[in-house]
């Protein structure tokens, strides 16, 4: 007779799911010895909040909904989803209610066996340490490597160009192996370099970076009179000027290095190229679209130029350029299109009769545009504006601008937030009054609809008109706690989906069908969080990542929360851009909506982490600004 649990169907199933994959046969068998199979009919309660929980549970088939204590947010677990572990780790009562959404088969492992596995197996433990943030950061790193290594579309970017084309700064500062650490650091400071090649007898023998000084000197308290040879990386990876850029990038990603010495045939170091140099080069080659936009003779040519944007985006994504750079690039093109169309309008209609500025709102203002964005714009008029005399000119200019933008792929705003709408052609004073109305007598619906106006940026004309308005508005908002509480609450009403059900994501009200909307469900909540802090602290920045870091600087947001949200923001936008690149490759219109079934397991898991992080931060935001009341 055999003790056979390890050959059971159960072991095979567990092995396919992440926390169990790394367990040895014996460790897995120990868990299975303590395993019960339970079956729950649809609608039945598996665990109630406040129950003593003695089990770690895994959904074998069906679907389970976790109703998270104290909120209306739900996590839905499909096959392989785990629950019940927070209370085991805490040694407390269950905080969540678990309900079978479908007839479900659930594997339950008794608490002692689960805790023992946690104790002896560090990787298994790490999985449950609920640090979604750390997993997310790892995901971003890994994703970049995958992106960098993937082929295709690189030709359009000049990624096959030689790395020598990147070398701008000549005359490389080098050190010698006999220098002390202190001397090397001083030299790097004087010359303002972050990397110091070390040469002995005319040959490159090593390389020292800022990071080495931190990690191998300061971090370990090394004597500063030690020779630099003790801390340098010996025999560093190098490239020659003819090395293709993409090859260099892949090498750097594989070896986890950020600086590459470029050698000439004689073996001299002629330059140091950083990974940033390479990424910005891949981006700047795509700048020919920006150039084409800026010299367009009419709106037709603008549209021709912007029509290449999807292809350029595909190339950037394939080359592994990070989402922040991709959206800055897309936004740059968007800005250029606005400016050029406005200029062409002015040329046609004659010079503007009074000073004015073109203001944009929302994602373009934040430099976070993706493909398929709507236009959101308005005019701000300076002194001397008289509607009776001047509005006809600006109405015509607005029509020219907005029609041109629509033709160029920036669709008319469904909410009619466009300069063609007289509501959004105002003097700076009138604009200030509108904002004052929102701030001083907020009502929830109006706040919800007005948030994008608080992301504003001048694109053309008298930019000081917009900057003055922005300062006035932010000053009024920052001192109005009631308004801030409305803003925070508006952010917190966003429904963040927490789980994936089999391959589908279910929203709380599932009316939308089984579609994940990355923009409204993942990106917008982070933008909302950053905006709330920006208003509270009168931050100048409009960009979400910059706002998050500004919020940390002004101690409105803990540093680690800001960092985690920024990583999360980067991750979800990267998923969006890769999704859009795939849509483009299939000949579809790029959108923010995707079928969760099309996601890789890797992305699904990390999206789940992202949603958890966002939910936690939304709750913190609510208690910070809205006193925890809903």
């Amino acid at each position, binding site marked *: 007779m055999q003790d056979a*649990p390890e050959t059971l169907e159960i072991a095979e199933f567990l092995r396919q799911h992440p926390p169990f994959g790394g367990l040895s046969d014996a460790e897995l068998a120990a868990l299975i010895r303590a395993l019960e199979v339970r079956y729950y009919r649809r609608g039945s309660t598996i665990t109630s909040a406040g129950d003593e929980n003695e089990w770690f549970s895994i959904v074998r088939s069906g679907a389970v909904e976790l109703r998270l204590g104290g909120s209306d947010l739900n996590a839905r677990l499909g096959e392989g989803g785990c629950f019940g572990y927070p209370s085991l780790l805490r040694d407390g009562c269950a905080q969540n209610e678990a309900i079978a959404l479908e007839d479900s*088969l659930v594997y339950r492992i008794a608490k002692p066996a689960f805790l023992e596995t946690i104790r002896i197996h560090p990787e298994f433990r790490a999985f449950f340490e609920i640090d979604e943030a750390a997993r997310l950061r790892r995901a971003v790193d890994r994703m970049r490597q995958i992106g960098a290594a993937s082929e295709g579309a690189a030709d359009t970017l000049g990624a096959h160009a030689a790395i020598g084309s990147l070398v701008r700064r000549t005359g490389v500062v080098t050190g010698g192996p006999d220098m002390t650490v202190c001397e090397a650091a001083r030299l790097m400071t004087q010359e303002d370099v972050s990397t110091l090649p070390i040469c002995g007898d005319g040959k490159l023998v090593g390389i020292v970076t800022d990071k080495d000084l931190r990690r191998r000197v300061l971090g370990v308290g090394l004597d500063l009179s030690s020779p630099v040879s003790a801390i340098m990386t010996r025999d560093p990876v190098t490239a020659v000027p003819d090395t293709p850029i993409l090859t260099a990038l892949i090498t750097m990603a594989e070896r986890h290095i950020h600086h590459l010495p470029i050698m000439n045939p004689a073996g001299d170091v002629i330059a140091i190229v950083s990974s940033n140099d390479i990424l910005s080069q891949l981006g700047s080659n795509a700048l020919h679209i920006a150039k084409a936009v800026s010299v367009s003779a009419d709106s037709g040519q603008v549209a021709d130029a912007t029509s290449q944007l999807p292809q350029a985006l595909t190339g950037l994504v394939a080359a592994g350029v990070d989402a922040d750079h991709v959206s800055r690039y897309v936004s740059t093109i968007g800005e250029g299109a606005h400016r050029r169309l406005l200029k062409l309008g002015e040329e046609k209609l004659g010079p503007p009769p009074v000073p004015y500025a073109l203001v944009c709102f929302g994602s373009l203002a934040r430099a976070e545009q993706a493909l398929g964005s709507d236009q959101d714009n308005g005019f701000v008029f300076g002194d001397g504006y008289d509607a009776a005399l001047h509005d006809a000119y600006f109405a015509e200019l607005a029509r020219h601008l907005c029609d041109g933008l629509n033709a160029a792929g920036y669709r008319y705003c469904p909410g009619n937030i466009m300069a063609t709408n007289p509501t959004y052609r105002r003097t700076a004073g009138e604009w200030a009054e509108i904002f004052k109305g929102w701030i001083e007598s907020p009502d929830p619906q109006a706040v919800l609809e007005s948030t994008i106006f608080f992301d504003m940026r001048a694109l053309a004309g008298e930019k000081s008109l917009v900057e003055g308005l922005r300062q006035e508005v932010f000053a009024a908002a920052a001192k109005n706690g009631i308004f801030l509480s409305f803003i925070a609450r508006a952010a917190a009403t966003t429904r963040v989906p927490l789980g994936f059900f089999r391959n589908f994501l279910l929203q709380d009200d599932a009316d939308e069908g089984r579609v994940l909307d990355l923009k409204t469900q993942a990106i917008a909540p982070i933008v909302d969080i950053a905006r709330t802090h920006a208003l509270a602290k009168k931050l100048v920045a409009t960009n979400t990542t910059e706002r998050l870091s500004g919020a940390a600087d002004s101690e409105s947001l803990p540093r680690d929360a800001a960092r985690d949200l920024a990583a999360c923001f980067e991750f979800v936008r990267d998923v969006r851009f890769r999704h859009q690149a795939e849509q483009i490759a299939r000949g579809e219109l790029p959108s923010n909506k995707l079928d969760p079934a099309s996601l890789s397991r890797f992305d699904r898991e990390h999206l789940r982490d992202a949603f958890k992080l966002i939910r936690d931060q939304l709750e913190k935001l609510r208690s910070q600004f809205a006193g925890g009341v809903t």
Partner: protein
Amino acid sequence: MVPPFAAWRFSRRFEAARKAAPEGPLRDFYEAGHPAFATPVEDLDMIAIDLETDGLDFDHSALLEAGFVAMRHDRVFAGTGKRIRIRPPAALSEASVVIHRITDEALKDALDEEAALAKLLPMLAGKVLVAHFAEIETGFLDAACRRVYDAPFVAPFVCTMALENRWFPRTRAADGLRLAKLRAQYGLPAYRGHDGLVDALACGELLIAQLAARNSRPTLGDILRR
């Protein structure tokens, strides 16, 4: 409704078998008794069992493997899952090697029929046995006991196939009562078939699903095979 006198008839058969059993594992099995028909299912200790054989003729086909796992009305104790491999009297026919993925290699740790029964019977003693299409299990265990002990095997059996037909009668496809089909109907996952232990687990899971769907408080008498 439990048929009248079912409990009495079963007890009489069980008692007769006890008397016929010689000293040893089978006698010990009977001495452990069986739960009363009036016992609520919540109080029953059960064992899901599946036998793999190389044919359907109780007297001439070989018993190759017994897989079994302990359970109660609402849970299967997966960690108790065990299998016993049984060495058939004659060499394996090629067809059954293919069907059951049992090779001569795997038979090295197999027991002969008498040793297998001596190991199996104590684990079944006092329990309710659960099988899908229990004719196989009752028939083969009975034939084996008659060969080894010259006495019949009588045990309280629940047949998940019969139970489905009785509790949830409907028109079905010809193969609609097969284990995999019924499991799918209850939202239970697809398992690899023709493995005694996996089939026992699969059958045990089906019973807890059936009991959950029935939504009544049956007794042993209600669920027993008739």
